[in-house]
């Protein structure tokens, strides 16, 4: 195995494109190294992107934020401006693993590992985040929900790297939130994850809402019906019940060592509803 630590994104793309064998990008490494040790993957080349300065930056841009691919989750939690604008995304990233994992794991790595149970991805999808991808054919932007395609699979072509994530600006009276279910209080992989991002009109009526669910299908879901259930409402009990029902209906979960189908379907509705209430609270400034 070869280890390379280029200091520019173009050099990184060049290395990845030229490699005939199996090549992987190393940002936090908290998924990649676990797979390497279990023999799940045997890389011929690992490209460490943490020496590429722009990828380590969080920069304000057009009212939103651009987060470099190599920024560890812990740094997101320490950026008060980002936390103020997108509290849901930051709390999702800060739920990944332990404090030690937080010091390394990145949202882009979490996204590219493409586990349906990834913690940060439902919040990013709800937020309408966009991934900037650099490859041999240049730069392109795609919404986060189009990156992961199946467990462990992404839509990236050979030689392509995710350079950064862009979280858009927010209108007034907007809020987001992320909740997950784990049997312990820390350290577990999400059995169910729910991200909600919504905007309220001047009279408190919900004018826009996106609901995204993790660990309930082969990839993270953007559940349009769940969002629509609260648009036009003031998030009264009825609207929230409809949101919960829509969330549960969208689930296509499996039974595995972490949870059963019925459990995931039922709890998806519970978490989506609770997350919506928190997002609403944040949108109204309570």
């Amino acid at each position: 195995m070869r280890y390379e630590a280029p200091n520019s994104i173009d050099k990184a793309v060049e290395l990845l494109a030229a490699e005939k064998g199996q090549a992987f990008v190393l940002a936090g490494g908290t998924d990649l190294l676990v797979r390497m040790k279990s023999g799940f993957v045997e890389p011929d080349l690992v490209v460490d992107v943490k020496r590429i300065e722009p990828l380590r930056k969080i920069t304000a841009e057009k009212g939103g934020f651009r987060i470099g691919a190599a920024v560890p989750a812990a740094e997101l939690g320490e950026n008060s401006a980002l936390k103020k604008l997108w509290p849901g995304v930051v709390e999702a990233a800060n739920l990944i693993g332990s404090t030690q994992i937080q010091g390394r794991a990145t949202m882009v790595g979490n996204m590219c590992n493409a586990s349906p149970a990834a913690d940060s991805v439902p919040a990013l999808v709800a937020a309408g985040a966009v991934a900037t991808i650099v490859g041999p054919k240049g730069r392109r932007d795609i919404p986060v929900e189009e990156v992961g395609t199946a467990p462990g699979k992404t839509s990236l072509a050979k030689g392509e790297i995710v350079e950064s994530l862009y979280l858009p600006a927010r209108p007034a009276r907007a809020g987001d939130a992320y909740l997950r279910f784990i049997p312990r209080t820390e350290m577990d992989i999400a059995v169910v994850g729910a991200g909600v991002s919504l905007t309220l009109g001047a009279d408190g009526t919900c004018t826009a809402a996106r609901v995204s669910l993790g660990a309930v299908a082969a990839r993270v879901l953007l559940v349009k019906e769940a969002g629509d259930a609260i648009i036009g409402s003031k998030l009264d009990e009825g609207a929230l019940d409809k949101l919960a029902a829509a969330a549960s209906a969208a689930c296509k979960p499996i039974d595995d060592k972490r949870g059963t189908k019925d459990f995931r379907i039922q709890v998806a509705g519970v978490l989506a509803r609770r997350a919506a209430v928190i997002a609403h609270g944040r949108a109204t400034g309570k």
Partner: protein
Amino acid sequence: MPLDIKPVAPGHSFTVVGTRPLRPDGLDKVTGRAKFGADATAPGMLIGKVLRSPHAHARIRSIDASKALALPGVKAVVTRDDFKEGDPDFRDVLRNIMARDKALYEGHAVAAVAAVSAIVARKALKLIKVDYQVLPHVTDVEQAMRADAPVLHDDMFTAGLEEAPDNAASAAKAEEFGHVEDAKEKESDPHHGASLTGGFRPQSKKPSNVAKRHEFGHGDVEKGFAKADIVIERKFRTEATHQGYIEPHACLANYGSDGQGELWGCTQGHYMVRNVSAQLLGMDVSKLRVTASEIGGGFGGKTTVFLEPVALALSRKAGKPVKMVMNRDEVFRASGPTSSATIWVKIGCTKAGRITAAETELKLQGGAFAGSPVDMAAMAAFACYDLENVKAVGWDVVVNRPKQAAYRAPGAPISAFGVESVIDELAHKIGMDPLDFRLKNAAKEGTKSSYGPTYGPIGLIPTLEAVKKHPHYKAPLKAGQGRGLATGFWFNFGGQTCVSLNINIDGTVALALGTPDIGGSRASMCQMAAEELGIPYDKVRAVVADTSSLGFNDVTEGSRATFSSGLATIQAARDAIGKLCGRAAQMWGISADAVVWKKGHAKPSGSNAGNFEPLSLADIAKVAANTGGPIAGHYEVNAEGAGVSFSTHIADVEVDRETGRTLITRYTVIQDAGKAIHPSYVEGQYQGGAAQGIGWALNEEYIYGEDGKLQNPGFLDYRIPVASDLPMIDTVILEIPNPGHPYGLRGVGETSIVPPLAAIANAVSAAAGVRMLELPMSPPKILKAIGGQAAGKGKSKEKGGSKR
């Protein structure tokens, strides 16, 4: 207690015992200098790795390691052929460290390699070709008992079956377990005369996965149930759990061409490792020296051997030292988790709350070899109760899983989960406080125990009364919260123990112990030595001596270390004091029996002794060379009379009815320690045992797929409690002296894991109104039970109604 051991007078005030000094071995552990099993290296050392069976059950037709041996850097390969059959008592451990005719569980060792590096060793494993004939497997205890189950051992016949299989119930039972037996045929069949487990009594004719049937109890349970106003009968299930020690198994072996061997590594019993390894390698015991490194947790899981004989065999073949360290995946697949079980419990009581009959049937699988702790589970089941009619039957079953090893009070948490849950239900059914219900039926001195002997002085009632007085028991609860209570017991043991106590030139003491110190017992040994000698605590240094420096010591298990090594330390100190007084008498020219030892000094006593200045330990030590030579005290014993330890736990939980998650909001452990030598480490045993019990109750389990493979061999999905899962764990130490020890101390290491399983099940029942019959009480199970309850309009239909 042997007659030569004098207990201290009741009400004796201790000076060093009972205080909380810093442990003598603490500095290295907080600076990272302490050397654990994987921290040793040796010049020219090779790395050993094990090839493990990917199949749960397979015949091994052949093993071809030629390609592996041809790989540059590979120095040796061992297989079954490198271990010869020997003493039949070692038949199972021989098969467990290295598979012979069959691989009996996924992860079972099939071959091992020694190479210049871990990377080369891993590559070599892939080059070993094993010709497996895959066989059908079974991992569930009840399925393994069926007549049509795949049989693991062709030579295993069920022992201890009931006398006459002709009565219907027993014949049905025999039928159920594949023992097709015709009563007439029993007498004439010579085969019955001899069998592996001996005796002419009836046993199964066909090989079976049921190794043995155990039974305890007295009185007539059927008569008792007839007298009961209320009878509750439930069937519980528990999954296998692992001790969860954070340090994987590790050792460094060196087998010289002169036939001398060295072993260095983490174990709860290095003398056991020496004897077993010497036997498996055909060595004289004296040729093998084993040194116990610091041990990163054991809880019973390091009371046997896994890597040590294999590392020695590799080292013998390669002519170089070999280091072997398990990774976490191997620890889960191939060390010694405890049993999974079904527990059928039936208890009847009067409206006034007096138990009239109690019966249980336990089925525990002990993995691929016989010897699950079902006998101790059956004995411990009703140990806390004063019963007129009691019966406990236990079935020891083998399945295609790793061979179980002890896990802290082995078997007792499993039976207590069933018994203490049904006791709780009975109390609520007759509207009686569960604490009063237990007080009304509690075992006390003179009670005939459910496993036979009559109790001497025991501390159960004091723990129950302490609960009654404890603020936790009456504290208010918030909505969605519930409180549960459960009692627990463990036997505790003495065992073979040697201590030598040497007086140094400056009057300080070198204490050599043979019981590996896992949780801080070196501190309590120094306290007992200092107490007896009348010198300051920090004048004693305790070390764990290797097998060539001290006589044989049993494994540190059965909560025995502080009891047995403590007793031996006290006696060794008294032995030394005798000699010190002798030297003082010589120096004063008076007779030895006119000298007494008080507060660290020899003093003349008695009318004609004369008034000499008292001589301190240091005074006598300084001139020891001139008065006869070095002074030392020794004591070797097979300690008995360890004395039982009872405990009662109170658990408060909060259940989220929408997700089924359970949070522990408050927890209190009240346990009898006899005499707390170092109270901080006694509290540590109470808190650690409770935390393991909480994990067992809520989240820990071995999950097997249909393919017989373990699905969660890692700390990600084998979920032990993390810091944020638990509240502070409050403790109350009761001191009801144990007459079997000079200071009255009892073993405390194991009882604390017994009550939590039921305490939390009772709390969840109080909080969410659902009686959980299966462990772990994971959120999906609780949510389903709550859903079932809502659907059944409040009358939850437990499926536990069936008899077995």
